């Protein structure tokens, strides 16, 4: 058994930042990641980091834009924390050597992004995430933080009190991908989940194949509620063939969207008469799909994004990476022709419920980054707000887990008094259960009252995973994960996409249920313990099933149109009934849905919901 003060699961931006902070606060910290840190998906982020750095801008404006962008579903204490910490945390990156793009006077450049009232997006070309990731990894190397790379975390070791709020996380179980060895990792102070997004629940996504929602699935099964899972951001400009992301920076620099009739549809069809292409992502995604659905799409599939008029110099200076992506993945030269783009799954606004210090309702369990929901993004994340979220809340989770006092959190976590329980959801199927576990019991937190002490919790979790792996490997025949995963992805893209109907969501839930049932018969064909990606993906597929179910359930119960969540049956925002977070808890082997009110009261002011127009 390995032992550290703080165990960070995931080596992307949030995980690395958390590890640096925990180390600074004096903790013995280790990162356990299924990839090598520099392979993490943070590296694919392109656009930039929002931070109020300049005169004429301030954190309050950033907070206001973010609250408006969230469609009033963000919690003010989280949003204000983001806006206040972002400038300092961004400049910290600059001090660590991050090669930001620069102004004539040598200061960090900023550019306009969708939904921002000031050009406050700092950036490094169109490859900001790459530089952020590498800069953070350099600092991890500098500090000598232990990294267990290519170790796949299979489960959390959590004590099993009946009430999740009383449980404690003592560590994780992971296996060394190179050797297949399964080991316990005991965390004396805390476990921080920083596992990124669940984009692989969809088959057209900008996300890496490693983005399988492992953190949310594990936390959920251990008893932490998942929050606002229905809010999935679809990025308006992904390449049609692969889902590769074309940065919002293209529109920030002046890129224009055209339909097949050469119309600048954002204006000509009245989708956003002021902001045009720079309206927020949900608005632009719907506009594009409407164009395609009404017969004005190119090849009935996509629209054109044109940046030729910006000129080669500006494109090469600020968007060079985009030229390479369009060339390599679509065979299009962005200097001489427009690029084909369509909406693709991009970001999960929802995730593991945490407070602004990164804590969940389970003692010693933290989450940060895309896998977490603080919530700063609410119904819709503004471009350039994901990277500040990583550094701000990664840092806070690291500090807090290491024992640094950050003051009392204002956001409550866990099932609490005064929440409203959903009584009668009309479901086409019984969600959850269906013997998702082929071998042994579920997470350690099964309420059986067996385990209290830390070593025993970790050992028992290790034992359970060893049995589960033996079962999967010993089984000779059955269903393969790839088949189940493809079926799940297809159903989610067909029916839980930009436009959603009750009928469609129910259809998706039925398919998810089928996937659960088929998963009971899953087996691993590769008999080798050496670098068994078959086994790893079998685990990941199970995580995707759980996460996809919460996304679809959230989408089904929220009968309104807010942010990225559009419902055919009710095409308008319903503040009277829905200024609340959708919470889904795993109770006794199945999901239960409940709600928590949104916190619109900030430190000095209350954010009044307004019509969101751009």
């Amino acid at each position, binding site marked *: 058994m390995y032992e550290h003060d703080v165990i960070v699961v995931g080596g992307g931006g949030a995980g690395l930042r958390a590890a640096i902070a925990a180390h600074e606060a004096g903790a013995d910290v280790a990162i356990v990641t299924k*990839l*090598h840190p*520099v*392979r*993490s*998906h943070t*590296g*694919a982020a392109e656009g930039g980091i929002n931070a109020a*750095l300049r005169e004429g801008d301030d954190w309050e404006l950033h907070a206001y834009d973010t609250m408006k962008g969230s469609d009033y579903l963000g919690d003010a204490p989280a949003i204000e924390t983001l806006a206040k910490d972002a*400038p300092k945390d961004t*400049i*910290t990156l*600059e*001090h*660590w*050597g991050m*090669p*930001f793009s*620069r*102004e*004539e006077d*040598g200061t*960090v450049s900023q550019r306009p992004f969708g939904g921002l009232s000031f050009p406050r997006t700092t950036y490094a*070309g169109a*490859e900001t995430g*790459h*530089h952020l990731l*590498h800069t953070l990894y*350099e*600092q991890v*190397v*500098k500090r000598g933080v232990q990294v267990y790379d290519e170790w796949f975390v299979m489960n959390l070791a959590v004590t099993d009190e009946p009430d999740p709020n009383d449980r404690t996380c003592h560590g994780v179980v992971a296996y060394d991908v*190179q050797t297949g060895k399964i080991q316990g990792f005991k965390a004396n102070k805390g476990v921080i989940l920083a596992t990124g997004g669940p984009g692989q629940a969809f088959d057209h996504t900008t996300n*890496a*194949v*490693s983005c399988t929602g492992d953190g949310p699935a594990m936390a959920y099964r251990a008893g932490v509620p998942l929050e606002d899972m229905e809010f999935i951001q679809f990025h308006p400009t992904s390449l049609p*063939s*692969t889902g*590769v992301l074309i940065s919002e920076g293209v529109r920030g620099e002046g890129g224009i969207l055209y339909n097949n009739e050469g119309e600048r549809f954002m204006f000509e069809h009245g989708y956003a008469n002021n902001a045009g292409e720079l309206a927020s992502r949900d608005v632009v995604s719907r506009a594009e799909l409407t164009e395609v659905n009404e017969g004005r799409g190119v090849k009935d599939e996509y629209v054109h994004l044109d940046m030729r008029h910006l000129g080669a110099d500006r494109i*090469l200076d600020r968007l060079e990476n985009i030229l*390479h*992506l369009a*060339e*390599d*993945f*679509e*065979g299009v*030269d962005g200097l001489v022709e427009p690029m084909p783009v369509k909406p693709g799954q991009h970001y999960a606004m929802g995730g593991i419920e945490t407070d602004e210090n990164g804590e969940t309702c389970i003692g010693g369990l933290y989450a940060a980054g895309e896998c977490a929901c603080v919530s700063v993004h609410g119904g819709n994340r503004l471009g350039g707000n994901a990277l500040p979220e990583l550094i701000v809340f990664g840092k806070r989770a690291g500090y807090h887990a290491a024992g640094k006092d950050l003051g009392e959190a204002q956001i409550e976590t866990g099932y609490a008094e005064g929440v409203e329980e959903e009584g009668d959801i009309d479901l086409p199927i019984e969600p959850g259960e269906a013997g998702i576990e082929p071998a042994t019991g579920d997470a350690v937190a099964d309420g059986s009252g067996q385990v209290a002490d830390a070593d025993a919790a970790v050992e028992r979790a290790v034992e359970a995973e060893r049995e589960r792996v033996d079962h999967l490997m010993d089984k000779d025949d059955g269903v393969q994960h*790839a088949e189940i995963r*493809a079926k799940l992805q297809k159903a989610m893209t067909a029916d839980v996409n930009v436009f959603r109907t009750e009928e469609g969501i129910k259809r998706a839930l039925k398919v998810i249920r089928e996937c659960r049932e088929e998963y009971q018969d899953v087996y*691993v*064909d*590769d008999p*080798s*313990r*050496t*670098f*068994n*990606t*078959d086994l790893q993906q079998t685990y990941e597929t199970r995580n995707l099933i759980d996460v996809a179910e919460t996304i679809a359930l959230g989408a089904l119960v929220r009968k309104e149109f807010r942010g990225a969540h559009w419902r055919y049956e009710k095409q308008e925002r319903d503040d009277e009934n829905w200024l609340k977070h959708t919470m889904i808890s795993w109770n006794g082997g199945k999901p239960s849905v409940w709600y928590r009110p949104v916190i619109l009261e900030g430190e000095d002011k209350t954010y009044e919901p307004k019509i969101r127009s751009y």
Partner: protein
Amino acid sequence: MSTQQQEPEQPDTQEAPADPEMKGEESPQQKRLKRKEEDAAAREKAADASELEGETVLIKVFRYDPEVADKQEPRFDEFHVPYEKGMTVLDAVMYARDTYDSSLTFRHSCRQAVCGSDAFFINGKQRLACKTQLSDLSWPVRVEPLPHQEVVKDLVVDMEHFYEQMHAVEPYFQSEDLPGGELEEQRQSRENREKIKMSSRCIWCAACMSSCNIAAGDNQYLGPAAINKAYKFAMDDREEAELKEHRLRILEQEHGVWRCQTQFSCTEVCPKDIPLTEHIQELKREAVKKNLKFW
């Protein structure tokens, strides 16, 4: 075990190694643009990709697993993959894995040329599988692990030595002094950022290290990737002269920059178009200029 030797499909047709003094006549950016235009022209000229529609690509994939009896002796497996326009080598091996043999093992993640996981030896050249179009290759397509690296299984190689070399150059900002408080920026001129820009694009895929004959023969040679990483720091004006000297001292050691014989193979295979060889030459010049001893 060590893998197969380099077998270039055809001799490299790159222009002759640039004389370091020639630098500045054509910037790396101009060169890349030129190459991009050439690539596009070549693609136009080549058979229209749509003619390949409906075809089946034969891919021959290297297999090895130390644990599985019939894979202990390295071999090639053949997979027939239905071709679709725009299909990459990564798409093809994924198809083979998901459809025919789930034990086929390789690293991959972002599939957009930034995570650096899927550098393989494809038709005799180190390339990223995700950004290599099948239509740009001659068929059948042969996919092997990176040469000169230990093979863990199938296309997966041991990266430990590569990471050690990357870490050996102390690749991190060392200065702890903050300029006038936490909110004041250090300032960097646009020119200086431009100078380090290409070196900062490295995705640690190890294609360059695998293609380097010197690295193959000298296990201690820092190698092109690590030296390029050090270049980024040594040339960044934000760090003091003292640190620059410290970095040059690391680089001019016996197994550092002087080992490079300007064969340009690293520059040739780099999927991010980093002018690695030029960077190494520039560091040699810097080391001489600083009057440091050399080997």
